[in-house]
């Protein structure tokens, strides 16, 4: 599936195609498309005059970027130290079990992407899970299905 790249030139122009704005440009493309399409990276390489391999280096170095399209629903489990000590890994395992994928992967039907993050700064209410931007506090194994149920029903 080819992504519609019509929005990319505008983003590049916004930053005046400056080399130093590479990361900011990639961040905007990521936000717009929910991932970094290959063609977009080629375009960025051309317009900014940065070798493609260097653009790919940056795109794969930072966790904020994804070269693969993400699912419609994003589940992020916090694995910061405080959440870890309070049982975060068990919550992650339950999600992995229920969705049938491992952290960092997307379900084959492209519905869910499961990710981990190394600290959201909400340690008081850990373990924390963010589902589609909504924060869920004091997670337990039982609450996992309560989060997934309504999202599964939605498209």
């Amino acid at each position, binding site marked *: 599936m080819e992504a519609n790249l019509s929005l990319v030139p505008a983003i590049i122009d916004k930053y005046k195609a400056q080399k130093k704005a590479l990361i900011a440009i990639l961040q905007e493309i990521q936000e717009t498309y929910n991932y970094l399409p290959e063609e977009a990276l080629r375009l960025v390489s051309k317009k900014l005059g940065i*070798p493609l391999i260097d653009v790919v280096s940056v795109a794969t170095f930072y966790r904020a970027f994804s070269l693969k399209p993400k699912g419609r629903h994003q589940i992020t489990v916090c694995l910061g130290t405080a959440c870890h000590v309070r049982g975060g890994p068990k919550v992650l395992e339950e999600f992995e079990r229920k969705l049938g994928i491992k952290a960092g992967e997307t379900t084959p039907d492209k519905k869910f992407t499961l990710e981990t993050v190394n600290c959201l700064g909400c340690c008081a209410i850990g373990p924390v899970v963010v589902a589609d931007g909504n924060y869920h506090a004091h997670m337990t194994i039982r609450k996992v299905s309560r989060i997934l149920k309504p999202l599964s029903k939605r498209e």
Partner: protein
Amino acid sequence: MIRLIMNGLEVQAEEGWTLLQTARFYGLEIPTLCYHEGLSVFGGCRLCLVEIGEGSKARLVTSCTYPAEEGLIVHTDTKRVIAARRMMIELMLSVAPNSKTIQDLASKFGVTQVRFKIRNEECILCGLCVRMCAEQMDGRAIGFQNRGYRRKISTPFDLRSEECRLCGGCIYICPACQLRCQGPEAETAVCNACLTLDPTCLDYYNELQCWMYDAGRCGTCVREAREKKNTSAASKL
């Protein structure tokens, strides 16, 4: 001229020299892997470490990147340096056990065991190929991707690169895959056998049978000798 003290010896370095260049000028041996005179410095393999400073402030730095400083005190072979160097070699062996270059280093510096699980990746991420492609060949077809334990060298998107002109420079310069060890203990992680090959290939051939010169023949002599005598010709250290 910059004056500094290396291994107790007062030495003088030109402006812009690194500690490695200074040491080499004076004949002091420091092992390197990712350093190459024709390419920019990288400082990733951590083999060329030296100890600078004294007492509690002493620390290890890569000599290939550290600039010569006025009054700096440098030691190239302290206990700390050797211990670190050995561990680096052991780590390298654990991912590229078939590399003759690394096996040779192991023999030279007394690394006799690999206590980590062997991974057989044939790549120590020294970046020589990347720099060769970019700087000498002006290709920029390959580069580093990802970070941490997932780091790798590849073309963009792991696809056939348009920039690659099949010059073979990357293979030429690679220390891991270029000289593949074919000695008698090739399957084990560390063998050190090639240092004490007896008989050597020169006992059978009129010229050196190395990988670089004649692909596929390295170790031939030993194999043939063994097949002839039906006894192990090489001794393990």
